[in-house]
């Protein structure tokens, strides 16, 4: 019996073990099958990717797309990180993941080359791309090693990468084969788009842009940049400027009246600008960036040094303070009152230009910066064409004889292509003519005069009451033709005011601080919202009839700077309404203190009669103060008028303007070599 039981149990155990063995074999078979499938997938990926890199194959992008689809999200992310690490990159770009066609914001790579001026020009394209695909994440890829100085504080830009040559091409290739970006933008005056795999950019947009840019590819795709002269001539033949061409080929609303962006964030260095406080001044710049310059730091497109000396001397004679800006390697101009070459950061340079009454330069980066800061420039052109590079807001002086030789030869920037020791195109510009133009177009001074103040106390119907008051007042004052703006510290206030108007019909432009701009998309859907920095409102000078400025939570120094900005962008006879939330005494002290503030280039920022404040700020939790902007004549302007009168008298007496008058102050010939 026992033996039978044991045999039976053994048989049962055998059956159980056999069953388990069978199950294990089945599982092994499944795993082998799964491995075979994975191997097949990888081999297919290999073939597809190989085919994608074979130029003989048609439509490689499609094949790359297919190859990328074979990789998982994690693998694509790994590929991206491996590429970034290999290129030695760092920063916010590591925060980008493959979008996988999901709901992430549109991500765009803008690739460009050139100096500071070119980068400021590209910033206009960046802004328009952001507005078109808002809220887009834009990465800027530039060849210039210090591109971050231009884009670091630009709120439209997520990250800036500086790569040159083969590395730049490697990064572009990496971006082209992954779904990190939705759009690759190659800027070479003409804009070329490419759509990486899984791109979410609308096809209609791309098709229109491709159809526009295709005819320009013959100038920019091969031998870049040696066909730039032909490109420029073709553009000018069609009446297009650099901005027109960029906007046309990018299928974006960019035109010649646009300007680039630069957002200075630090207040100007007090020690540097101390000589300029309260003094009207004019900035000058002589030289070019290091890469394209000759050994002496200048290019063929720069004025002769003697011309600069004459210009500076003439301006000094008329009472103007001149400030030389630029980099350390650029040659000094004898006679300038303040030499800031190599001493001021790009931020400070921008602010010094902003408060200048005019800027004098040859075609180059600081002209683009001055335009971005809203300052008019007198620009002398020679090798580069004014019709292509000139801003209509500036005074562009093109040489009448020899001109437009840029990229005729590879050394055009360093030596005259016709072999002259000094380019005759630039020697043609007479200092007296330059000074005459500067005095004619120099910006006038403005001062804000306090008209009155009122408190917005506990009876205020809503938190937006002061804002509504400002807009209503500006509109009633200037009727429907008024152009008004609000610069607020929080999105709440802006949205409350936008809510009073139908979508897209808000009667004013909205500005929000840089740090809030990333979250302004919700408000931005209702009305146009732009960012402003503590020291810069990105708007044209004299462009608004009324401006409402929210000074809550703004420190005293920045309050003065912001008020100066408000005055700058408000036209003469316009109004600035400032809004401050503070106790009575603090508000009174603050308003009074603003009256004593002085900034570079302005004799007086604010005229505030303390008596106007008495008795009005009783229970003020919030205070609004109304300033009227008035144009202020300066002594220098009077001197300039005197100069012009003397010039007319000289002409009527048969004297040549460029003769006796100027010879008194110019000790050497105005025309000379570089």
């Amino acid at each position, binding site marked *: 019996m026992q033996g039978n039981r044991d045999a039976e149990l053994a048989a049962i155990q055998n059956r159980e073990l056999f069953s388990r063995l069978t199950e294990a074999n089945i599982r092994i078979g499944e795993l082998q099958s799964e491995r075979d499938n*994975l*191997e097949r997938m*990888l*081999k297919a*990926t*290999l073939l597809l*990717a*190989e085919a*994608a*890199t074979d130029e003989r194959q048609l439509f490689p992008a499609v094949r*790359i797309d297919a*190859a990328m689809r074979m*990789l*998982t*999200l*994690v*693998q694509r*992310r*790994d*590929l991206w*990180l*491996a*590429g970034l690490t*290999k290129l030695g990159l760092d*920063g*916010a770009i*590591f*925060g*980008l*993941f*493959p*979008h*996988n*066609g*999901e*709901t*992430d*914001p549109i991500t765009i790579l803008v690739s460009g080359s050139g100096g500071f001026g070119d980068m400021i020009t590209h910033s206009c394209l960046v802004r328009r791309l952001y507005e078109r695909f808002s*809220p887009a*994440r834009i990465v800027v890829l530039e060849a210039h090693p210090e591109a971050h100085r231009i884009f670091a504080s630009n*709120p439209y830009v*997520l990250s800036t990468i500086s790569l040159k040559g*083969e590395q730049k*091409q*490697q990064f*572009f*290739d*990496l971006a082209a*084969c992954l779904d990190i970006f939705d759009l690759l933008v190659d800027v070479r005056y003409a804009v070329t788009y490419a759509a990486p795999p899984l791109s979410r950019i609308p096809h209609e947009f791309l098709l229109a842009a491709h159809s526009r840019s295709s005819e320009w590819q013959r100038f920019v795709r091969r031998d870049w940049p040696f066909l730039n002269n032909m490109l420029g001539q073709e553009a000018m033949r069609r009446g297009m400027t650099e901005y027109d061409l960029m906007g046309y080929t990018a299928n974006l609303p960019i035109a010649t009246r646009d300007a680039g962006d630069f957002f200075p964030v630090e207040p100007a260095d007090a020690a540097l600008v101390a000589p300029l406080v309260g003094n009207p001044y004019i900035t000058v710049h002589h030289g070019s960036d290091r890469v394209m310059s000759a050994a002496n730091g200048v290019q063929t497109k720069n004025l002769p040094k003697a011309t600069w000396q004459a210009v500076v001397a003439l301006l000094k004679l008329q009472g103007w303070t001149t400030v030389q800006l630029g980099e350390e390697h650029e040659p000094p101009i004898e006679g300038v009152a303040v030499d800031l070459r190599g001493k001021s950061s790009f931020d400070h340079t921008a602010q010094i230009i902003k408060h200048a009454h005019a800027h004098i330069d040859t075609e180059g980066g600081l002209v683009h910066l001055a335009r971005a800061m809203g300052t008019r420039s007198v620009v002398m052109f020679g090798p580069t064409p004014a019709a292509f590079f000139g801003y209509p807001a500036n005074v562009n002086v093109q040489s009448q004889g020899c001109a437009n030789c840029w990229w005729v030869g590879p050394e055009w920037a360093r030596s005259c292509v016709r072999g002259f020791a000094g380019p005759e195109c630039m020697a043609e510009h007479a200092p007296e003519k330059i000074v005459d133009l500067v005095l004619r177009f120099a910006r006038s001074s403005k001062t804000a005069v306090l008209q009155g103040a009122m408190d917005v106390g506990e009876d205020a119907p809503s938190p937006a009451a002061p804002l509504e008051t400002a807009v209503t007042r500006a509109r009633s004052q200037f009727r429907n033709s008024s152009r008004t703006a609000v610069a607020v510290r929080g*999105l*709440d206030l802006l*949205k409350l005011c936008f809510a009073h108007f139908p979508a897209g019909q808000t009667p004013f432009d909205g500005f929000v*601080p*840089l*740090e*809030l*701009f*990333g*979250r302004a998309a*919700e408000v931005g859907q209702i009305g146009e919202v732009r960012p402003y920095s503590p020291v810069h409102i990105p708007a044209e000078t004299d462009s608004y009839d009324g401006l409402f400025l929210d000074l809550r939570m703004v420190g005293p120094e920045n309050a003065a700077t912001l008020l100066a900005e408000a005055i700058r962008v408000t036209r003469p006879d316009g109004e600035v309404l400032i809004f401050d939330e503070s106790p009575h005494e603090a508000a009174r002290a603050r308003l009074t203190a603003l009256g004593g503030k002085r900034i570079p280039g302005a004799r007086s920022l604010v005229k505030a009669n303390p008596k106007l404040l008495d008795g009005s700020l009783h229970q003020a939790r919030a205070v609004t103060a109304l300033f009227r902007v008035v144009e202020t004549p300066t002594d220098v302007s009077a001197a300039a008028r005197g100069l012009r009168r003397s010039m007319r008298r000289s002409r009527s007496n048969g004297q040549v303007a460029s003769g006796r008058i100027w010879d008194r102050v110019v000790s050497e010939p105005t025309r000379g070599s570089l």
Partner: protein
Amino acid sequence: MDAFGIESFQSRPEARFDGQTHPQMIFDAVAKFGFFDHGRMVADLLDTARVIENDRAKGKCLAPPEAVLAQVGDDMLHALPDDQGAFRLRHSPAMIGALRNIEHGTLFDGRLSLPSPIAAVILGRRDLRAQFTTAGRFDFRAGLRWFVLHGVVEHRLWHVLSRHFVLQLIGRSVPWKGAKLTPLEMLVLDERPELAARFDWRDPSGCQLALTQGLFSEGVRQYELFWCLSAGPDGSSTDSLANPEDVVARWRAGGNIGTELFEPAALSVIEQALGLPAPSAPGPVDKSAANRRSSLVEQYRAEAASAGCEYLPLLFSVDGLGCRALGQGSFGIPNEIGTPVFTDSLDFVLPLPSFRARYVAIELHLPEPRDKALYRIAVNGSTAALSSTEDRSALLIAPLLTDGAPGRGYAVVSLERLAVESPSAAAPRPWAILERAWSV
């Protein structure tokens, strides 16, 4: 050549990283990092959080990648045990806690910050994308509406919630038609637009009050928003826990100190009031049990801290019987976190929200189908509900009798098993599992 053909490709001289040969990079990456790995995806995201936060601090627009969050959300909602990596993610309090620290964005003009885990859940429901789209754009507000009113209960996602989020949801005021509503009320109005038409908005404060009352009297039950109420309104949950010492003192006098049901925000207050470690039950003091309870509390705290879980609605410890202190925030699924009930008589302190709480509700689960149980809930010593069940789960609702001043202080609830019939009654096993407890 290896099994994947990588070496042969690497050996080709022209295979280099120069923009012409992308496959080299592809296969390097594959060889190095392997295939689908959810854990590494999340680790990568968490490692990148610092970059995202730095970028945000500069006012830029970097955000947690929605493609990755959608995958994480898909794992959290749909992963099956066979999907090893994904299933691990679903059960990872560390991941949830870490993700919770990453804000995905804000809603209601910045009044409500959207934590990444909730964004992940919303994005994980790809089948609802059409409903979450407004004017051609993905609308997280619509997604949040689904999550709050449906998703939390549907997918049992209480562990995803954070106390901070809940307080924002019911506390911040959103201006709307002259009234100030909470984001929760706004979401309810989004869901039920006909409700707004019922009110006369010329009297905003009256409408606001009516809406709030309606939400508490009907909405909470309809949408099972009990988790919302336990946090307290207006961000003043801690303030609402007024004078717990009085309540506890009365219960001590009655000899009713038993097992405590804690809410984390109230934990320190209750501990202070009870003077933990304290006698756990009437009768001789069991020091070892008290110590165990104390250690359980510490363990809970450490666990909550490591997981970054702020909102753990329940902490249920049974004295002297070695039960683990478990909470909804630890593992997420009530069936798994359910606290086993061994003792015949249980008392616990329930901190009340400062809402007009009128009921306490307890959901029990009887694991053994052959069990039959009778149990009751007593509030303030009076039997408030007496129930018997042969069902495997029961929801008990008892009115709170808190001295005519509803909504402030603490209620102490007794749960007692009056009878049990079980063929295995002698075995030391739980007779019920407490799934949830809340006040309404």
